[in-house]
């Protein structure tokens, strides 16, 4: 699909729209449907669409595989790390109330941070799996 002008142009314009929607789902999960998991999938879909049109080499230049590996583990680390931080502050694992002086505010910070961790891991892993399959088809 590398030489199809229509697809190339549309992919270029759709990528930021899909990515923006992913971030909306990520940070609006408190009020609407969605959250880190769905946002991660949507963000990876934006990259997969780009890869399908522009090819694996171009996509790997934008986001190299080793970056994905680091991101995937960083997400889990952020999530579990939040739990460890609340334990160090003297509470239970993932007890967000302690993250701020005001429990409600602590809950907000905690949910935001763990959703972010989940989203990072999900999008990185989805892309990693897709790259693994696509790379295998190439070689």
């Amino acid at each position, binding site marked *: 699909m590398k030489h199809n002008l229509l697809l190339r142009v549309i992919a270029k314009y759709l990528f930021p729209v899909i990515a923006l929607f992913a971030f909306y789902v990520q940070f609006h999960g408190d009020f609407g*449907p969605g959250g880190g998991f769905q946002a991660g999938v949507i963000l990876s879909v934006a990259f997969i669409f780009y890869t399908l049109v522009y090819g694996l080499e171009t996509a790997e230049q934008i986001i190299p595989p080793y970056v994905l590996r680091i991101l*995937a583990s960083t997400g889990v680390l952020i999530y579990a790390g939040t739990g460890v931080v609340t334990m160090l502050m003297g509470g239970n694992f993932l007890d967000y109330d302690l993250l701020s002086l005001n429990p409600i505010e602590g809950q907000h910070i905690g*949910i935001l941070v763990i959703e972010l961790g989940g989203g990072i891991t999900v999008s990185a892993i989805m892309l990693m799996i897709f790259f693994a399959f696509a790379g295998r088809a190439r070689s």
Partner: protein
Amino acid sequence: MKNITVTVLIDALIDITLLAFLAITAIAIIHMRNLFVIIMLFGIFSLHSAGLFVVMDAADVAFTEAAVGAGISTVLMLATLALTKNHEEKKPPHHARLPLLVVLITGGALVYGTYDIPSFGDPMSPAQQHVKPHYIERSIEETGVANIVTAVLASYRGYDTLGEVTVIFTAGIGVMLLIGGRLLRRKKQEDD
């Protein structure tokens, strides 16, 4: 009063249409032999399920089903298909009478089992009685999150969600170990 009847009718119509499409897609998947078509039909099946979840007011589940079931898994299955040589499924040599019998009996037992399940949205069912009243009544003052599903997933059941994220992480590691990585590709190139 008239409006309520119309709404119920429309709801029933949407339910029947979606379920009919679901059944048609499932039957088509069984009859098709071309794997590419089957994968596309799987995506359509997921999309219809997502529609059903929306009808049942489970927006978060519908969202996940549409994004993962219809989106990512279709792409991943297509990527897998690109790796295989044979895109046609072989016709089974004989009629599968015994499996059909097993499926019919199991299906019948499951349908029989549904008669004991409380009706959809029944407020007196055990699932609604345990911790759910607490979530519905207290989640906004305890977490300040408007979406109860998010409050349950991220706060009350944060530990479970950590498990989910770890499962996805582990799945990614598994795929990388099996087919990913530069080492394998380079070795293959040397072999060629």
